[in-house]
């Protein structure tokens, strides 16, 4: 006997429906506040980046010390810098571009973070307002006496549980 075909998409939809549970979740309390962090930028890292991205252009003779050893070191260091000057220049340009890109990204992140925080706050304000409105509605419905609904004389026929307009006399 041939087995019936099964549609994976339909099967998956049913699977999700079966597992879906309705969960009651409390509304956020009024006056909830988000974090005060408004900047994505890490100040310390940013300062370090700007302080250190520039590569040295030449050798400082003071770093070599004194004496023959110092002079030899200075000579060797100057030679090294002369050989590597083009590479160091290119490297500096590359680092400069990377710093600019990082700067731009961080600024954009800050702007987006602020925007997100504002949106989040707006959403929470709206939720709180809606919750308050629903609480008022519930209270109003609870306090509203049954007498305000149409009576049998006014057209409610409870025998068949139907609501009909009042009869014209």
């Amino acid at each position, binding site marked *: 006997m041939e*087995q*019936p*075909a*099964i*549609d*994976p*998409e339909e*099967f*998956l939809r049913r*699977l*999700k429906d079966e*597992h879906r549970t309705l969960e009651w979740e409390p509304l956020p309390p009024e006056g909830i506040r988000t974090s005060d962090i408004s900047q994505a930028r890490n100040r310390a890292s940013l300062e370090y980046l700007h302080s250190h991205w520039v590569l040295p252009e030449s050798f400082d003779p003071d770093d070599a010390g004194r004496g023959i050893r110092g002079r030899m070191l200075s000579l060797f260091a100057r030679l090294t810098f002369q050989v590597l000057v083009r590479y160091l220049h290119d490297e500096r340009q590359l680092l400069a571009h990377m710093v600019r890109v990082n700067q731009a990204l961080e600024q954009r992140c800050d702007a987006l973070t602020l925007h997100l925080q504002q949106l989040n706050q707006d959403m929470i304000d709206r939720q709180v307002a809606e919750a308050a409105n629903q609480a008022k509605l519930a209270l109003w419905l609870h306090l509203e006496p049954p007498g305000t609904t149409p009576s049998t004389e006014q057209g409610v026929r409870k025998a068949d549980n139907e609501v009909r307009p009042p009869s014209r006399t």
Partner: protein
Amino acid sequence: MTNSVHRPDSRRPAVAVLTAHWETTSEAGWITRQVAGALACSADVHVIIPDGAGPAVAMDGVFSVHWLGTPICPAAELRRELLVEGISETGTGGGLAMTPELGALLDEDLIEPWAGAADVLTALLPDLVVIADHRNIGALRAADHHSPEVPVVLLALGSDARSLAFPHFDPLFDRADTVLAATETERSLIVQHHGSPGKVRRIGAALAANPSVLTEPNPWVGATEYVLVLTGVDEEGEHEENELSRLLRVRFPDNPVGIAHNDAFCAWHEGRVTRGWPIERSSDLDRLMAWARVTVDLRPGRLLARRCVTSLLFGTPIVVPEHSRAQEHAKRGGGGLWFSNPADLAWCVEALLEPSTRQLFSTQGRTYAEEEYGSTDAFIDRVGKACDLVPTAEPARNST
């Protein structure tokens, strides 16, 4: 198809396959070899690659491999990949015209390695040029430099939707007489972005399930009723795949769960783990998949999802991430389910562990895999028809 070069009728057509890499480790390399092999049934196939220490010709089975000796720098390919990714993310690729500077940067160090290919093509006088990879601008330039009239077939190898939609690679699709796609998803993407549905052909692949594995269970997990999870990442490391595999072994403690990492294989059962060597031989993986209740591939291949097809050929249903290439095998082939979040993953595995449900998906998946990927002859026929080549009785045998 109009051949640009006249050949005597008795001579087999010559096909030049231009590919950046000639290997089988990646899915792209594997499918390139498969297509070249299918073409070898009806033509003499010459593979031209930029690799090698110097220009050379070598035989590789039925293929003549021409090494140009100008290998492509891996950094150049990485730069192209990053640029495509970056520009696509910012919307420049789809919405705005590419600037010449960006175009030059994309092709930097990727065109020059193909400079010698035009001379090889001129010497070979191929009836057909097959370009592997829709980003292979260098190969297209070489083919055009040889002859702008030579028929070109593009083996798209489009594993990334953003790259397929990237306008810089449009000339390859425009120039190609036929575009070959491995899967229906890839074919749809190409048609969506480049039109011409008539010239985009789905060729699939040729995969075979080794029947011997069905008689020899792999004892690594210690049972046959297990869930096989393929993470595609190392065991240590903060990967989402590791989190998902952890979820599965915690969710199904009574069911054996075999988790295959790149660097280890862990068999979990009732909270205990047996750690072993990673899977190295494809036959071991085949045996594990063949005897599993369900195969969960958390990082399927981006081009074809070959492992998933193999699992289906063995009658083992699959659970794969949504929007992966493997989803096609689960959705179109009815061979499994897909998930978009961890809860879905747990529900899908739970559903497929139920014997009657598993049996339905197993039957459907195997039928699909056998029809679409199980026949080598059908694959050769599809490639031959797409390239307008009629297979001869036997492929040419080259003496080495």
